[in-house]
């Protein structure tokens, strides 16, 4: 009998909450999104479609996974997100599928999702909220915005503060230290890297390094082996989703070029690309991992894993 008492209280509380709900049916809130569009919600959304892997991760991070009814093809984290119905890929969405899922909120990103799709969903009377996280610090604010939208503002505030603290911790640690020159390879063949307009660059900078290709005019420049030899990076980071096999091969390929300081000092690393290029809470893990790799002499307490 004793064990049932909390359940009774729980039910009572639930009934009370439902009662409150009925008393105040005008929860209606209006938010302004990253495109300066007004988005009104009648009640906290219960059926959410996420149009980017990073946003799916944020929703799960906020504990809202069970409200997610549709995700994009590459939404693979956390693993249970991959089992949700798919609405096409990030850049190429299937509007029909989205409408069929009958969502009460669709969240998308400014650069990925096309205006046509937004327009069609609006016509369908589906609220679409667009976010635009482009820097590491935006992840926290976007997380908070989404939390507010979904009626879990307090949780969002807490989690985004926690992320901000972690970023601050890393920044304090690497402050004043010499910044190693980092070459980030995001594609094996051809060799592709990133310039300063990317979130990767932001992670490298916050982790206390300098992105070798930051001043390239092209956002994702293809770079020659020759150029890498010439610029002599001190650390090479290969961002990839797979371990072993191909990565080991790429590492071996670099090992032939002993004139590169990173190779001589054996500082060629692999980092999970999802933790470097998705503006999701996991990018903070990526930041911590990278900071450790760039500054291995520092004392890092309980970092990288939680």
């Amino acid at each position: 009998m004793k064990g049932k008492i909390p359940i009774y209280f729980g039910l009572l509380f639930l009934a009370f909450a439902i009662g409150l709900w009925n008393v105040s049916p005008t929860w209606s809130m209006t938010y302004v999104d990253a495109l300066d569009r007004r988005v009104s919600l009648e009640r906290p959304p219960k059926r959410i479609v996420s149009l980017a892997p990073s946003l799916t991760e944020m929703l799960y991070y906020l504990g809202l996974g069970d409200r997610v009814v549709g995700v994009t093809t590459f939404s693979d984290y956390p693993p249970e997100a991959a089992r949700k119905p798919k609405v096409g890929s990030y850049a190429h969405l299937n509007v029909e599928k989205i409408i069929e899922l009958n969502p009460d909120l669709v969240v998308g990103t400014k650069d990925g999702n096309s205006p046509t799709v937004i327009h069609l969903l609006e016509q369908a009377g589906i609220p679409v909220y667009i976010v635009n996280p482009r820097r590491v610090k935006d992840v926290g604010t976007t997380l908070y915005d989404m939390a507010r939208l979904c009626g879990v503002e307090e949780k969002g505030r807490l989690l985004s503060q926690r992320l901000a603290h972690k970023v601050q911790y890393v920044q304090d640690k690497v402050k004043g230290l010499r910044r190693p020159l980092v070459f980030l390879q995001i594609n094996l063949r051809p060799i592709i890297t990133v310039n300063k307009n990317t979130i990767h660059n932001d992670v490298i900078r916050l982790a206390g390094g300098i992105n070798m290709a930051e001043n390239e005019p092209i956002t994702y420049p293809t770079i020659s082996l020759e150029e890498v030899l010439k610029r002599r990076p001190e650390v090479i980071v290969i961002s990839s989703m797979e371990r072993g096999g191909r990565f080991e091969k790429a590492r071996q390929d670099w090992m032939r070029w002993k004139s590169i300081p990173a190779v001589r000092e054996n500082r060629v690393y692999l980092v999970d690309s999802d933790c470097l290029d998705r503006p999701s809470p996991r990018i903070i893990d990526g930041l911590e991992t990278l900071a450790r790799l760039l500054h291995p002499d520092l004392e890092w307490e309980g970092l990288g894993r939680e």
Partner: protein
Amino acid sequence: MDSHIIRRPLTPGRVLKVSSILGVSLAVTIIISLMLGTANVSLEDVLRMFFHGSQVKESARLIVLKIRLPRIFLAGLTGFSLSLGGLVFQALLRNPLADPFVLGVSSGAAFGAVMGIILGVGFSIGVPLFSFCGALLTIYLVLTISRRKMGVESATAILAGVIVNAFFTAIIMFFIATSSEDRLHSMLFWLYGDLSQSQIAYSGIIAPVVLFGFALLYSFSRHLNLLAAGEEAALHLGVNVERAKFICFITVSLMVGLVVSFSGLIGFVGLIVPHLSRMILGSDHRLLMPVSALGGALFLIVADTAARTVISPSELPVGVITAFLGAPFFIYLLKTRGSRWTR
């Protein structure tokens, strides 16, 4: 088989009969295509929507009328124009390889569209206008390169087209590779042909031009018959060859430029459908023009419906389907019936 059908003299009644058979097939295809897709919509719902709209679920209505219908219209108008363009080019240049894609007109149009996007002109009017100019520029280049004393040399025109095509494609690739704008990256998909972002307004812009273009080209159908037999013969029979060619080239460029700016580069349609029509119905352009045009519309609607359903909820570029469906069927017909060009 049935060679008597082909040799029977052409009457307006026959043109009308064949066209209406195709028209009805087109209508049936559109209705079937409206039913198919990621979301389930029944035939009953589709029919009800057009006759007494209110009793259908709002989401189904939206999917059919705002998403599928605009896309089907765009596919139809694109197939119509590309196929008609192929037919006319083949007659004008007396070459079975001529079509808007091979001659570089499509990629010239795409080049114009990309320039328009880079210069930031408005999408509704500006980009199609640039696209049209790109198409015109290409046809001008191709014809100038291949002009000899005796008129345009058709083999040279094809070669020139292939080269101009490669050149413009290279320029587009260059802009995509060097552009930091994310919008341009998504254009890569658009260059493979993409009808998924259609709005009904696009068809509103295209339809009048396409219909006017068809009427204009149809008025030259007898000239095309004579031109296909040989320019000299046409000249002797009193055709103002230069004028007829000029008007036809401009009209096709206008149509192709316009559809390319909305649907991207879609190959194969302008090659396959006109040849199929010729294999089945002979070489009279008065009949071939409506048949190729309607057949092109039908073909592209079927191909696009396949593109959006076979790996649903994701989709394939429509060009994959046009080549995949088209090539084997085409080879089969070529082997069993032979091409009219070889007879």
